[in-house]
């Protein structure tokens, strides 16, 4: 698949502070989560993609076109910034139509697009209210509306779920997923792991201005060889099961869970273990209730990579 967004040797300094350090990556269509703690460089990366800052070194391209000093490319990009960016004295409708005017649509088209975007984010009823009176969730949604109103193929969302209540989060997640299903590209940043996990399994991990990893969560997990995989097997006879694996060289460590029914195995060769487990369970006639990988999630991957 061809890259929609491509960064090549991208670096950005703020005076003596390094915001982004030699980042090279390609982002394809679909949802990609940009994950990292506060100050990791997520917003810097997004601002470089949206052409708001000039890279100190390197280039960013969107569909092969450089974004810096090339405003035409922003017809194709919708950007939802992290902060509130409103003139409180405008209504939601005025805010949207005002921004749509920059794209050169006819008046009727501006009205139609504003109506459509407000409808998508469920703000049609409140469009004539001053933004000053909007709740946090409504503000997030009107920000999202301005990002999608011009029908961009690429959406850049900087912490879009922050401050939303659970219902608001669910609505926004649904909207973003709908965008993905239409074949668009969405780059969404967050420092909250479950938020990203709810949106996508494809992530870019960024920390201290560097890309630590990129890919699907299980794929990245496979690459982390320093940390063995954890496999949790809940069965009626965990100790019998453990006895069968004692001599297995692929196993690093075995512990029992607090419930007394769970065997937690740490191994570098997950596939080998699963292959043997099937045979052992059948031979010994052990009834297995559940097999899970507790560290095969974003939280674990993130903690391994950033060394927390």
């Amino acid at each position, binding site marked *: 698949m061809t890259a929609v967004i491509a960064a090549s040797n991208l670096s950005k300094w703020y005076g003596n502070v390094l915001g982004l350090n030699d980042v090279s990556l390609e982002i394809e*269509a679909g949802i990609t989560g940009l994950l990292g703690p506060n100050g990791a*460089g997520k917003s810097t990366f997004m601002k470089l993609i949206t052409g*708001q800052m000039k890279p100190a070194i390197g280039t960013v391209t969107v569909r092969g076109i450089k974004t810096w000093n090339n405003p035409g490319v922003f017809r194709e990009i919708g950007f939802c910034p992290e902060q509130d*960016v409103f003139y*409180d004295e405008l209504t939601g409708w005025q805010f949207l139509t005002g921004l749509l005017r*920059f794209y050169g649509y006819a008046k009727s088209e501006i009205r139609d697009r504003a109506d459509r975007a407000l409808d998508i984010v469920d703000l049609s009823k409140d469009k004539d209210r001053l933004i000053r009176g909007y709740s946090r969730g409504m503000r997030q949604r009107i920000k999202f509306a301005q990002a999608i109103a011009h029908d961009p193929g690429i959406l850049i969302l900087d912490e879009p779920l922050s401050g939303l209540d659970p219902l608001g989060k669910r609505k926004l997640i649904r909207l973003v997923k709908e965008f993905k299903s*239409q074949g668009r590209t969405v780059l969404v940043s967050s420092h909250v792991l479950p938020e990203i996990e709810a949106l996508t399994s494809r992530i870019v991990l960024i920390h201290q201005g560097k890309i630590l990893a990129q890919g699907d969560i299980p794929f990245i997990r496979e690459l982390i060889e320093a940390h063995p995989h954890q496999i949790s097997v809940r069965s009626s006879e965990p100790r019998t099961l453990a006895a069968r694996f004692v001599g297995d060289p692929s196993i690093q460590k075995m512990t029992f869970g607090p419930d007394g029914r769970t065997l937690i195995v740490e191994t570098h060769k997950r596939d080998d273990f699963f292959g043997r487990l099937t045979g052992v369970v059948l031979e010994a006639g052990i009834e297995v209730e559940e097999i899970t990988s507790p560290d095969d999630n974003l939280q674990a991957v993130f903690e391994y990579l950033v060394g927390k």
Partner: protein
Amino acid sequence: MATVREKGYSHWDGRLSERRFPWWPITRTGIQLAFRKKRFKFIFAGAFIPSFVCLAGLYISERLEDFKTFLRGSDRLLNINPKYFATFFTNEALLFLIVLVLAIGAGGLIADDLKHSSLQLYFSRPLRKTDYLLGKMSVIAFFVLILTAVPGLILIVFKLIFAGSFKFLLQYPWLPLSVLGYAALLTVFLAFYVMLLSALSKNSRYVVILIFGAYIFSNVLYGILQSIFRTPYMALFSIPANLQQAGAFLFGQTPPHNVPAIWSFAVLAAFCVLSAVVLGRKIRSVEVIK
């Protein structure tokens, strides 16, 4: 495994009109927001008072016999010539009113964008930094021109109507150009002046104070330096004095201060260049890491 995605959306097929003036939405919004302030409407209306006074002077000048008792010998002030227009345009009351209108109506032009972090919204759209600055400048141009060029040209027309002949215009055919030239000078200078100060703070109230403070302080500084050094060149430190010098030159009058007007033009131009450099540095996206 890579998934095959079907492109489920289609781009708008309508015709995008190439925006010849991509800055216009900024100007429009700026003007609309200014007129939402009640006190601004009041001050803006009040800023036309000098124009009406000048218009009354034009009328009376054509009916001197009718107003003889009222004028009591001060009719020499109503000799309508370029000096009359220069006096109208460069009088401190008008300049102060224009600065007042701009402070209230345009003080937040950039400060509010900085406060609301709106720059990132502008610059993630098909808009260049120059378009942004032009849009903001046009708001100031709108107010300055409507208070100077428009009344100036209307006053000339009324002079011709009251006189019932084109004699005045034939006598001073360059006067409309002087009006437009001075209005343009005021527009350019005040645009840079207000925008520079607006870009220095996120708080539009501070900006209002700055706009007034710098304007008045420059005049006070001129007074202090003048009393110390006793040279008319100290007038170059005063914003209103420089505008009056340049105005007098454009209307073909003797400058009020004994300094060549070219020096005032140079001071105003240098200020504009300096402002442009500072604005170029200040108008950029919000820094992420402090």
